[in-house]
């Protein structure tokens, strides 16, 4: 399922956070959304996931029109995300963080849980097994019953990805997954992102400042600056694009001044 944004805009009061942004994320691709701080990258994520409503433009994911949907419904469509400032449920254990994310896949709901119907236990069994499998994938199975606050920063980031994967998404939005990672960890992240895509056959959109990760893993890159598109293309094309260089390094006139 492709994610298609067309002429999407979002203003906060007089501030144009996102202006007329259009791009398409092809099924199964790894897509980079980059730009300097304040370029509107996270706002685009918040628009896709329904945290904000776009003022103009259309957003489609497969056959779904995303604009009228609420965040929980968008998650149901198969779009999962992580957050720039990690948002884990710190009052619950690591595995419970994953289990929260599978409520909507359950066949058994509240009544079944209260009556302890067989379907409730079957669901819990299946969800527990899936959660443990995912925790093993992210090497977090040994801390399954710990509090997320006890985890290292990198592990918290990985836990957030694991929680997102619990939704069995078709599209995974990662907001600065490499923030705070060292060279080795970032290399590991690249492998993991590729592995996720290949194993679960999903599309990945990556907001990232770490160029080592972006250039290494993305097949398609979209560059924003001050809410507008300044470049789009393969890593090689984007890297050589004069506007991108200007946005990241400053224009020559600026340096002279």
């Amino acid at each position, binding site marked *: 399922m492709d994610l298609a944004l067309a002429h999407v805009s979002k203003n906060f009061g007089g501030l144009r956070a996102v202006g007329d942004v259009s791009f398409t994320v092809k099924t199964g691709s790894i897509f980079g959304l980059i730009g300097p701080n304040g370029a509107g990258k996270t706002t685009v994520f918040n628009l896709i*996931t*329904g*945290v904000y409503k776009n003022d103009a433009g259309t957003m489609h994911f497969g056959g779904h029109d995303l604009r009228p949907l*609420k*965040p*929980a*419904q968008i*998650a*149901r469509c198969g779009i*999962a*995300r992580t*957050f720039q400032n990690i*948002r*884990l*449920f*710190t*009052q*619950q*254990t690591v*595995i*419970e*963080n994953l*289990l*929260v*994310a*599978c*409520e*909507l896949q*359950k066949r058994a*709901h*509240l009544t079944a*849980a*209260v009556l*302890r119907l067989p379907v*409730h*236990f079957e*669901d*819990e*069994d299946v*969800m*527990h*097994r899936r959660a443990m499998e995912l925790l093993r994938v992210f090497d977090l199975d040994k801390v399954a019953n710990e509090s997320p606050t006890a985890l290292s920063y990198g592990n918290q980031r990985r836990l957030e990805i694991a*929680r*997102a994967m*619990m*939704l069995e998404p078709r599209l995974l939005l990662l907001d600065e997954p490499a923030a705070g990672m060292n060279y080795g960890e970032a290399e590991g992240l690249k492998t993991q992102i590729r592995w996720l895509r290949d194993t679960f056959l999903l599309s990945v959109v990556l907001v990232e400042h770490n160029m080592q990760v972006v250039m290494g893993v993305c097949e398609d890159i979209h560059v924003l600056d001050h809410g507008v598109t300044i470049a789009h293309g393969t890593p090689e094309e984007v890297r050589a694009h004069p506007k991108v260089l200007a946005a990241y390094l400053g224009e020559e006139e600026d340096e002279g001044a």
Partner: protein
Amino acid sequence: MTSKLGTRSLNPKRVAVLSGVLVIALLLDLFLKDVVPDSSIRQLLMLAACNVLVALSLNVINGMAGQFSIGHAGFIGIGAYTSAVIASHLHQSFGGGEPTFARSFIVVPSCMLASASMAGLFGFLVGLPSLRLRGDYLAIVTLGFAEIFRLIIATAHADSASGSGPLARIGAAISSLGGQNGYQGTDNTGIPLYAGPFWIVGLVALLGVVAWRIKFSGWGRALRALREDEIAAAAVGVDPTRYKVTSFVISAAGGGIAGGLMAIMRDGLGIVNPDNFNFQASFDAITMVILGGSGSVTGSAIGGVFITFTVKAIELLQGSSVVQDLRRSFDWLDLNALRMIIYAMVLIALMILRPEGLLGERELFGTKRS
């Protein structure tokens, strides 16, 4: 955790516990009169059990869901009036007489079902608009709702129901509830008190288990997640409005059952009065939950019992000769009025010593979460 699930169906231990509760409830129903000859103490015990239900139900929305409802008395009141009316009319159709145990199997379940549905319906009507919004709207709306409910009942009288049409009919129905003087059954001789200890113990056990299972279900997990971070919970598919409104309806329905039981409990007063459901009653309910530990099922139950006994103790102290003697020289001395101050001091002490309440979110007996 998974290994435990193997022994999940009707194991002998569970059957034993279940039949044990039934036997105790039945014995209490038959012999409580002989064990506790003083009817005011029996009344207190029954009231304590009802207040456990009050606390358990309020805990669902205030503790588990982390929303703040300060109008629980409104739902308790709706439940109380519903059960009072239905019990009275059923009793009348049975031809009056003493409320028998056999008849209670028709009266009590119908009353409870009606009270729960009625309170739940109002919970939905109040909760849907206020819980769609983030923030403290629920507190404001629930407070207003409880007071409106109380004042409508208290101020309705026969001449407010003139004319015809649906509005007048509703007016007539409300004014038949006795207004400020309270409702005392169809012929004003008192509400038939059908709910003996069997029903009270049974319902406390049943709803205690329900509350427990709600907390330790995936649904309870989602509620906790929502309470902590609404945006993150929504991003993994937990619909905030749906979960909050559902828990509010559950909470209201539970409050309705508690109120219904209070109205028709044996050794009760045989009267429901709008003043029983004033802000003080809502505040008592909040104190129960906070004192015991928001989010804890057993903690709330303890809070319910504790507050019931504290209220009674202060009443007794007020009636004691020492205080009465003192009152002759200091006529301002009114311990019932001082209750708010005593509560406030207890709560302040608790905030300092144990900000999370007696038990916090933990439970009395151990269990693994999820």
